[in-house]
């Protein structure tokens, strides 16, 4: 593409895509970037453009969102393999065309790169019993992009189990096959270096991670969070971390202000409370005002005899066969009931009934003069009556 500003470059790319691709451009999601590492051609600069059907991108983003993932950047497998080539494997860079094979027992990922730029990525199933077929498919995959004679070498990444396949590929394709190892910085959580087998199995995923970490400014982004927003957040954090001493001074200042506020608040509160206490007149308080009445209430609750209640409880249980001639109720001489009963059993029933309540205790019926109509005397203690220790005046009424 000729050199142009960003907006004009995008216009030119969109026209080119419209012309070259079988889908209308409004059905595509696409992105482009200048290839700064690639040499400038006679007509301008190299520009890498990648596109995918818009509905597929939307579908994949929706699926990721449904799984609770917030996607920073959705890019292509080509970008992942390119990042893996540049940062994930030990090899000497070559300006010409190369192939990479990430070989596992089931599948080969075959990428063709020119000057580090990924031109194609294809996957082929491995026919375990017929490596010739697999090698033929591999040849077709490479030749679909470039003639085989232009391929300088084939970088092979796979476990030792794939050695026969590697030898077969070298023989079948007639290319120099170089075995590559994972970069020494690629380690597991425990610090163990990755093996070639692990790199072959997880190569595209590792490449994607490397692209996100090391090439996040240039990687092709088909969808995801706005780069500006991510960058703005990053810039904010960086700007905050740029002045540690200023922040420390601010923190110390805030601490001092907090201490001053704390001390001032305590002093103010203490002064308020002391003012309140000085103005507090105990004799004018509610407690002091109602104290005489409350004392009187306590005395009455403690010593007043519930005459009405006692007589009512008594009358409730007196049977019809009993005629009461006198009732004496006193704080000291308890309850004394005298009367006559036509039915001798009624006296004891009355006594039992009085015992069942909570008001009377030590109920004691006595019959007298059984030959003269069944007179009786019933005495009982009043359970809720408190005696005076000094005693009331003795003597009859």
């Amino acid at each position, binding site marked *: 593409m000729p050199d142009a500003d960003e907006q004009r470059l995008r216009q030119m790319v969109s026209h080119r895509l419209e012309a070259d691709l079988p889908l209308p451009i409004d059905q595509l999601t696409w992105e482009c970037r200048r290839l700064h590492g690639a040499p400038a051609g006679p007509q301008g600069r190299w520009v890498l453009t990648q596109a995918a059907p818009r509905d597929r991108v939307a579908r994949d983003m929706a699926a990721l969102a449904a799984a609770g993932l917030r996607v920073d950047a959705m890019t292509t497998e080509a970008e992942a393999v390119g990042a893996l080539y540049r940062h994930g494997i030990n090899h000497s860079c070559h300006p010409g065309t190369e192939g990479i094979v990430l070989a596992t027992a089931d599948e080969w990922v075959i990428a063709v790169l020119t000057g580090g730029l990924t031109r194609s990525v294809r996957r082929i199933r491995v026919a375990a019993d017929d490596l010739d077929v697999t090698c033929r498919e591999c040849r077709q995959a490479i030749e679909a992009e470039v003639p085989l004679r232009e391929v300088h070498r084939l970088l092979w990444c796979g476990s030792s189990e794939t050695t026969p396949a590697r030898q077969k590929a070298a023989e079948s394709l007639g290319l120099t096959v170089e075995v590559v190892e994972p970069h020494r910085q690629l380690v597991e959580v425990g610090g163990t270096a990755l093996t070639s087998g692990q790199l072959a199995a997880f190569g595209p995923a590792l490449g994607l991670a490397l692209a996100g970490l090391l090439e996040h400014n240039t990687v092709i982004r088909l969808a995801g969070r706005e780069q500006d927003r991510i960058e703005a957040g990053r810039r904010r954090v960086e700007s905050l971390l740029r002045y540690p001493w200023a922040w420390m001074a601010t923190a110390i200042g805030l601490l001092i202000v907090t201490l001053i506020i704390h001390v001032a608040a*305590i002093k103010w509160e203490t002064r308020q409370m*002391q003012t309140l*206490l000085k103005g507090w007149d105990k004799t004018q308080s*509610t407690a002091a005002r109602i104290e005489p009445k409350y004392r009187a209430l306590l*005395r009455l609750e403690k010593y007043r005899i519930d005459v009405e209640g006692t007589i009512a409880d008594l009358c409730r249980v007196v049977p019809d066969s009993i*005629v009461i001639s006198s009732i004496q109720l006193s704080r000291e001489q308890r309850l004394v009931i005298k009367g006559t009963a036509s039915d001798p059993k009624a006296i004891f029933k009355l006594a039992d009934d009085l015992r069942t309540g909570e008001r009377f205790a030590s109920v004691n019926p006595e019959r007298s003069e059984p030959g003269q109509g069944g007179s009786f005397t019933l005495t009982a203690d009043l359970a809720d009556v408190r005696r005076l220790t000094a005693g*009331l005046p003795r003597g009859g009424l």
Partner: protein
Amino acid sequence: MNMSDRDRRALVLGGVAVGMIAVYLVALNPLVSRYNDMLADHEQAAAKVARILGEERKAADQARQIAEWERKAGQLSEPKPYSEQITSVSYKLVAAYQASGMQVKNSNWTHPIPWPDDRTLSLATIRIDAEADWENVFKFVAAVYRIEGVMSIDRLELAGDSKKPGPLTVKLAVSVLVRSEGDNRWAS
């Protein structure tokens, strides 16, 4: 005098240590003491205020109990001096006799005795002999318990004859609390 590096270092360290001790004694320690005093004052004042607030809450509850009692059983008051209390209660008892229809035959006040819970108070008792119907007796009892100053009916005796219909013979002892001070020459 020439000083070695080691001596100089020791001198600097010693100076710093002495400086730190001086800062602690002159500035830090008094500051911490003043802060602790301030906290102690605050705590003391807060405890007093909390106690007052607690008393006020308790008083509010007591006031509610008093109001409830007065609604049911008449006014509550502190005992008055003997003469004043006896006069007041006697007047109200007469009103209660009349209201309840009791036929009073005899009533007399007894010598006051000391109140066991409070030596500044005495208990005077009025003994009443009367005749009344069953219903009137309890009208009278209810009226007596609404008289301000009445402590309790300490004795009640009801007697009647089933063979001879007529009013019941009623004997009552009504106790009244009085203040045993001032001009109360009867109080012991």
